[in-house]
């Protein structure tokens, strides 16, 4: 009987541990969204977008039904680059510009960053010759290389065709369904729910973006309930520090607004508690395990 109780305690503890560690492990291992593709080609790791579907005209389409994946669009500046950094175990911002490359092949290297641990992170566009790139890297101090590659050229954010781009917002039903347009990688986000409600098809959207508005190549992301999520989790305007007619000369210029946390800071604090609670939970499980050990000894 006592043996069963001990085993029961042990099983419960192990299960609690697994439950506790699984999200941490996912975060630590850099498990990304379903549309991120990672391929190892020799000494080079290539990170790119793996579409769910390719339309007849070649437009890669990704369906995002998962809320957490959709939230990446609000909280991640550059989704593929964030993922590449996670993969490399390098913190964003802890790199320097790297100018030692002598690559003359096809495609274009948009930027090169070198981490202090020797990880080279490259943003490339077009069909890059990996062998030639590898040869140019071999003489450098790079220990490992991660490439974030977009295999096609895009004019989504090019200057000079603003008029065409503005037509996205002002001259079509796209204004009702367009979520955002990221420059690199070129991603056009459409609210899939709104698109269905509008009665228009994905092909119509692509046709408008391409022939009507002059966008060349892009990944089309169809995100369910994008606008609803944007309202709940998206960015907000910072606003003035004091509103209403209450600013007097004595108040103006005082730093009172800085001492009281804004909505932004409150949200940060709430998120901070997530980590705090993880600590408490880990400590709790640890103490429980210790007590269980004592119990088994007896």
């Amino acid at each position, binding site marked *: 009987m006592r043996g069963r109780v001990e085993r029961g305690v*042990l099983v419960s*503890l*192990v299960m609690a*541990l697994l439950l506790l560690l699984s999200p*941490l492990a996912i*975060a630590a291992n850099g498990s990304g969204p379903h549309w991120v593709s990672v391929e190892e080609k020799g000494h080079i790791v290539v990170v790119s977008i793996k579409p769910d579907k390719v339309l007849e005209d070649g437009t890669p389409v990704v369906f995002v039904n998962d809320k957490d994946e959709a939230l990446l669009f*609000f*909280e991640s*500046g*550059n989704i593929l*680059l964030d993922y590449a950094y996670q993969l490399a175990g390098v*913190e*964003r*911002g802890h790199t320097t*510009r790297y100018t030692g490359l002598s690559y003359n092949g096809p495609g274009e290297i*948009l*930027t090169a*960053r070198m981490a202090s641990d020797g990880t080279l992170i490259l943003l490339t566009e077009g069909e890059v010759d990996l062998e030639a790139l590898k040869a140019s890297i071999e003489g450098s101090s790079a220990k490992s290389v991660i490439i974030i590659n977009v295999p096609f050229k895009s004019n989504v*954010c090019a*200057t000079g065709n*603003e008029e065409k*781009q503005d037509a996205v*917002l002002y001259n079509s039903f796209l204004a009702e369904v*367009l*979520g*955002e*347009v*990221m*420059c*690199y990688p070129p991603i056009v986000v459409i609210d899939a729910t709104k698109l269905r409600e509008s009665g228009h098809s994905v092909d119509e959207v692509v046709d408008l973006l391409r022939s009507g508005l002059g966008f060349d190549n892009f990944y089309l992301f169809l995100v369910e309930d994008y*606008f609803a999520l*944007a309202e709940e989790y*998206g*960015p*907000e*305007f*910072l*606003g*003035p*520090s004091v*509103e209403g*007619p209450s*600013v*007097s*000369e004595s108040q*103006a*210029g005082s*730093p009172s607004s*800085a001492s009281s946390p*804004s909505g*932004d*800071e409150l*949200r940060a604090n709430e*998120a*901070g508690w997530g980590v705090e609670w*993880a*600590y408490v939970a880990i400590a709790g499980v640890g103490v429980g*395990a210790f007590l*269980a*050990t004592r119990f088994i000894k007896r």
Partner: protein
Amino acid sequence: MYSLRLALTLFLVVVMLAAPIASSLGEVPYYNDARYEPRDNPAGRYFRPLVGGIVVTIAIPGGDEPPEQPRGIYEPADTPYGRCTLGYPVKKLSTGKVGFIIAKHCYPTGVCYGYQPTYVDYNYIGQSQRFSYSVDAAFLETYARLSKKILHIYSPSGAYNLKPIKGKVPWNDQSYIDEVIYKTGYSTGTTSGILSAYYRYKNIGNRMLEYVVAITGMTSARGDSGAPVYWIHPEFGDLYVVGHLVAGSYSTKYAVHWQGPRAFLGVVPLTTG
């Protein structure tokens, strides 16, 4: 029994290993952030000539008690509305008039009046001439003298310098991705983050903004709206304008690139280069 103890020991080891993983998840890198001490806020002081990164008190038309005496060039009675930050100095291409970029969402009306630092007649600096919701910007034409400089606070004690604006960071230049950039705002002083992405269109507060730059790991708060965002050359220390701060979410802040006001308001940053 031995195997049970072994299992529990292993379990404790794993739990101890998990703690640093959990703590690392909450880390955000910062660089020389000079968030000012409450009693020593250079961004809240009086500056003449005007520079970017200092407080501007916004007033809107429609005050209950019109002044008995005309207050200067512009006559309508105004009501103090709130405090934001003067962005970067600009010149309107069509007229040659100069002023500053401010965030449009800092005031709800079609026009606003700027006072620096406080809402007193003699602190009046100018009036907004043109605005655009698409780039959340307004051109505050100033009659008070301005200089092509931005306030840069480099120490938490409030030590600062006025850095000349050497140039502009080009729109959508991917070589600046992952570079450290700064902002100086009235509420949180000079803080830094990482330039992480460019957006041609970005949904912010369910309003579509254009020419948006995403910045990760930067501290900001209400009152920082309009703050100039800039890059400092790591070797030479020269300052280059990126844009003005407008919004934020938990980990990411958003600025509008100077190309936006150029396209929508016809103004360009004033630089010394």
